[in-house]
């Protein structure tokens, strides 16, 4: 494989057997509907090939988003061999990609379903998640978009099957009090159900399944962005009724962002980071009239708050007449596209 632009800070599945097994766990054949699949960051296309092994009655169309120029020859060859493949030479990170696909009519026959109508029968997203910070940001954004029914969720509850680096998995799944507990954990757990599709150790050791090679033996903990981190196969399915409501998703953003600055500090102390006079919120979240699981002992450290407790905090905050009304400006880099990926 030729190394090319856009290939750094990324790992790809190269084991075809594991790829086939992985595709089986996606359950694309289950309900018998022909599906459109959007694959992100395929790299050389090993997972793509496994998907293409599915019959036309299951896989109607495969849209492949890859910006790395080094991979384009391989993927173009695949597209030439199978007319179901449509190659987009752009990073999945760009919102314009989806917009353009829509404009070109690729999703024209997809029904737009309500979240109550069950899992979307005709549409899936699959792919790898790169190791860099942009990808981490992307993951956080697509999980947050569930609350607004924005992006691909405009079509309904679209499941996402991703291979994500282990550090990201630990963040997504971190329980209260875990040292990995962070904003991403809260957003993921509030908006989506998720699980590992393959056992935790199934895709280990890294070097037997993934390329480029990582260090064989390392005593040091790898950097989160380093090649060689184990990859986890994760299913994300949007909740029927996401805990974060579209109306106050900005408030959630703001709260989690400001309070996780110092996640070992108690709520009592860190609440003043929110806005002047914010300590009045403590009265609301300790209200004994609230259900027990929604009450917050004020000494709880930020990382110890459960999703339920975050909900009662967000409720109190939304109702507070003096909440800052320029929340967007205060969390201004949240939706900024960073022009780094396109080199």
């Amino acid at each position: 494989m030729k190394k090319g632009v856009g290939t750094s800070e990324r790992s790809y599945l190269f084991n075809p057997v594991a790829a086939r097994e992985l595709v089986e766990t996606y359950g694309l054949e289950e309900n018998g509907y022909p599906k459109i699949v959007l694959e992100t960051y395929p790299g050389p296309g090993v997972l793509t090939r496994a998907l293409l092994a599915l019959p036309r009655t299951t896989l109607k169309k495969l849209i492949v988003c890859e910006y790395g120029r080094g991979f384009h020859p391989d993927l173009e060859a695949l597209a030439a061999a199978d007319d179901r493949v449509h190659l987009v030479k752009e990073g999945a990170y760009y919102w314009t990609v989806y917009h353009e696909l829509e404009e070109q009519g690729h999703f024209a026959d997809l029904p737009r379903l309500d979240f109550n109508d069950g899992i979307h029968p005709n549409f899936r997203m699959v792919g790898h998640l790169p190791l860099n910070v942009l990808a981490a940001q992307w993951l956080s954004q697509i999980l947050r978009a569930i609350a607004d029914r924005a992006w691909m969720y405009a079509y309904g509850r679209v499941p996402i099957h991703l291979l994500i680096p282990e550090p990201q998995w630990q963040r997504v799944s971190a329980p209260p009090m875990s040292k990995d507990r962070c904003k991403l954990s809260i957003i993921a757990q509030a908006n989506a159900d998720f699980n590992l599709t393959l056992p935790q150790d199934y895709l280990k050791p890294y070097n037997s399944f993934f390329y480029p090679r990582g260090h064989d033996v390392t005593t040091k903990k790898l950097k989160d962005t380093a090649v060689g981190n184990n990859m986890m196969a994760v299913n994300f399915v949007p909740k029927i009724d996401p805990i974060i409501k579209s109306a106050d998703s900005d408030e959630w953003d703001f709260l989690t962002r400001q309070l996780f600055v110092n996640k070992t500090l108690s709520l009592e102390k860190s609440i003043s980071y929110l806005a002047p006079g914010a300590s009045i919120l403590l009265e609301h979240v300790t209200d004994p009239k609230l259900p027990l699981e929604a009450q917050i002992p004020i000494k709880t450290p930020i990382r110890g708050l459960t999703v339920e407790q975050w909900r009662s905090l967000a409720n109190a905050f939304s109702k507070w007449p003096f909440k800052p009304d320029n929340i967007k400006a205060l969390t201004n880099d949240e939706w900024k596209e960073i022009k780094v990926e396109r080199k």
Partner: protein
Amino acid sequence: MEPVQPVQKEVIRLEDGVQITEGQIPYNIQHMRDTLQQVLNNRSQSDLEKRQLDMERTVYDFAKQRREFEARNLKDLKINTNLTKEPLQQWMWQWYKLLKDRLAEDIKDIKEREANAKPDAVPLAPFLSCLTPDVLASITVMEVMSLPSSGGVEGGMKTTRALLDVGKAVEAEYQARILRRNGLSDKANNGPARTMSHQSLSSLLDRRAQREAIKSDADKRKKRPEVLLEWSAPIRLKVGAFLVDHLVKIAKVEASKTENGITHTQEQEAFYHCYEHMRGMKIGVIRLNRIVAEQLEHDPVTPLVHPRQLPMLVPPRPWLDPQDGGYLTGRAAAMRIRECQEQKAHLDEASREGHLQHVFDGLDVLGSTPWVVNKEVFEVALKVWNSGEEFAGLPPASKNLKAPERPVDYDTNLKTRTDYQHAIRELESQKRNNHSERCAVNYKMDIAHAFRDEVMFFPHNLDFRGRAYPIPPHLSHIGDDLSRGLLKFAERRRLGERGLRWLKIHLANVFGNDKISMDAREQFAMDHLEDIYDSAKNPLDGKKWWLKADDPWQCLATCMELRTALDSPNPIEYESNLPVHQDGTCNGLQHYAALGGDAVGAAQVNLDVADRPSDVYSFVARMVEEEIKKDIAQGHADLALISGRVSRKVVKQTVMTTVYGVTMVGARAQIERQLRDLGDIHHEKCWSLANYLARKTLTCIGDLFKGANGIQQWLSIAARTISRSVPEPRTHYCETGYSTPEQLEAAAKKAAAKKAASKSSDSTGVAKPLTKTSETERIRQEQMVSVIWSTPLGLPIVQPYRKTTRKQVKTNLQTVFISDPNQRSAVSPRKQASAFPPNFIHSLDATHMLLTAITMNKAGLAFASVHDSYWTHPSCVDEMSGIIRETFIKLHTENILEKLRGGFIERYGNFKVPVEDLLDEDIDRVLGQSDVPEEIKQGIVEATGQRGYKLRAQHVEDEYEGDLFVPRPLPLPKQAASAEGSGAAEGATVPPLRWVDLKYILPPLPERGDFDVSRTRQSQYFFS
């Protein structure tokens, strides 16, 4: 004359339920007007010096008085006071009162507590007791309120910055008070300084004698040292934190909000402390309550207009030493130094030795030039300003910007959401920019208004490279086109035949027609006489020809002057006071060309005699075109795209910035931008073509200025070598981890004793270094030598670039990381090397300017300068031209580079450079040098052979693909035994060479070309 209409911001307020939009004067502008009012009020007073002193007398006292006055007014008008009208002043007054009382109590507490504290703890009370609580409170409120929206924090400020600024302000006020109390500055009233008015400047020797007299007088009184002790950064921080923390705690505002018919009220903090994410870092910030922020949004309280920011009414005090001169009161700095103790030390030393006399003379001369406001131009500018229109570079009173519409699919389409938010942010920043531009012009207009009937002076000081700047930042001749148009010399001089000609040439110059011969420029003015008359007579209602000029306001001033002169009964007898400029053509390259003796290059930057001005940019563009033609002939067809299109503009920026050490990457970016502006080149092609052009341009400049190029490289190598060196005594520490052999021996003895006592295997019996560092790490830490040189005038210059070491300081508010200037830290070799060539050239052009200033003064001529633009009366231009050339020749016949190299050898010659830091090209060079002792060459080869010193051939191959290289064989290492005689007889191996003396590595100077600088004497267009 009508008053200056101040900047107004729109305020919407409710009166009897009706929305009323009205203009309000921002607080800062109002404040400055009050300060300026003092200038006006005191005009009746004849004693200028007294007025200047009055003006400088503590600004904080004045601010306090003003707020007291306002608050009293508010109280009196209680019934009618509309609280929304000017809440800012009211809040500030309340906070001030609360803070004052609270501080008084708490400082007392602290004093008692610290009296019983451990003696080694750094006490805070003495610093907090420097000023009375009410002054502290006043400073804190004013400083904190002036900071918001600085440093990229929306509606707030970085905590570190706020704490340091408050701390510094307290220190500055304290210093000023001490000075006043000791009467040091007031002595200007009756001391000899008084007699040094500008009329008596003609004799510099007199000045020097006077300076000495004043100095010894001051020394006798021994009042200086106490004042000059500076507070350390942690002290400033802690003082700042104590005050700001108190302010955050006591400052409250009442918030109220009506929602669904119910009005909620809550008392809230006016400020709150929180964190913000910036580029992946958590930054502590102090935010403003929304209510306060809204008030401040269009109305920032910018730092108070200190009298320091105004021109002076009397000539500045002469510079006595680096901390004494300029304004009549307070501490001054002859050089603007940021966090570089070393520079301060060298400057003080040079001052004690008397080396700074010339530099001080130069600064005094620059400061003693009297100026007046050009009233004619001011009246025009005032009309434009008060009309609020966008005109001749003045920003409009309000910019009509349309807010983008919120897209319908905002909630679901992430792309449109992003775009919309982007557009909103863009709009906000445009509005803010316009407002701040408007405020900046307002400052200038107000100052010009206040000083319209005064004679004023601009005290000057230096940046760290020795370039001189006026200290007042708002209105001075170094400012923008408007500032320059608003100023004239106070003194008038008879024009004469030549002066009239120069006035006309000046007109062509400011119009932008400066690439033609002098006669043609004069003709240009004559051809446009009608336009000139029209512009001067009806600047706003006529044809407005002056607006087409490159510098419209200066053009207008020249038009008016020319018209008045020509209309006077005898133009030759007309006494003019308009400054006429003479600018160097690419002044940096002129100095390089003179240093390197490049004949071709010198001709291109007008060092040589010519009948038309040469234009180096066009010349380089033509050279590049030639190269392109050659390459096309060789089959590079794709270059046809740019053939014949490489204009002056494409290469101009690159040529200009070569002097400042532009890199290949920088040059490529500059040229790429120009290619994009051409419009029809595909953006993917742009990059590769820019790459090609940048390389060609740099090569052409290199060819044109061969000598300059060699010098630039030499300077950079010298700086790199120096910044890698370690002085002799510290090499022992690098090798062993102990500062002296004695310490090492003692430690070894101890270790041996320990081994003998314990007999366990983990005691090795060898002294371990005191710190857990490797030798390489220790060398990196010890490389602390920065590049220091003296300008030909004797000004020592220290390059301040060091690796930042940050120190953690715990304060009341949060833990803060600051760089501590007193901490020893390693230099940044890359920065030292890349910045040295431009800094050195700047120090030369600064020297040339100061020399010219001094000579001009001796000749009794008025002088002002903006770096490489020299100004004088029209009738004196010929004389000044002569002086500019003479000083340039004098400067460049002094073997500047030999002296520089000599200075380096003297200062650093025996410093040691670690062998491992030698680059392969250094080794190549040293091995080829005949004056390096053979055993040193031998040592280098042995030591670097072990690390695998690559042959230069391989090294270079990466850069130039396909070039054929024949590796040069290295001298073979000789056997140790045969090299050494008696010492090696016992079979002891010679330890590998670790250090080489800097004097062996410092390359010899490049050879000079044969251009004779004295030819410049006859060059008409050298400065024009």
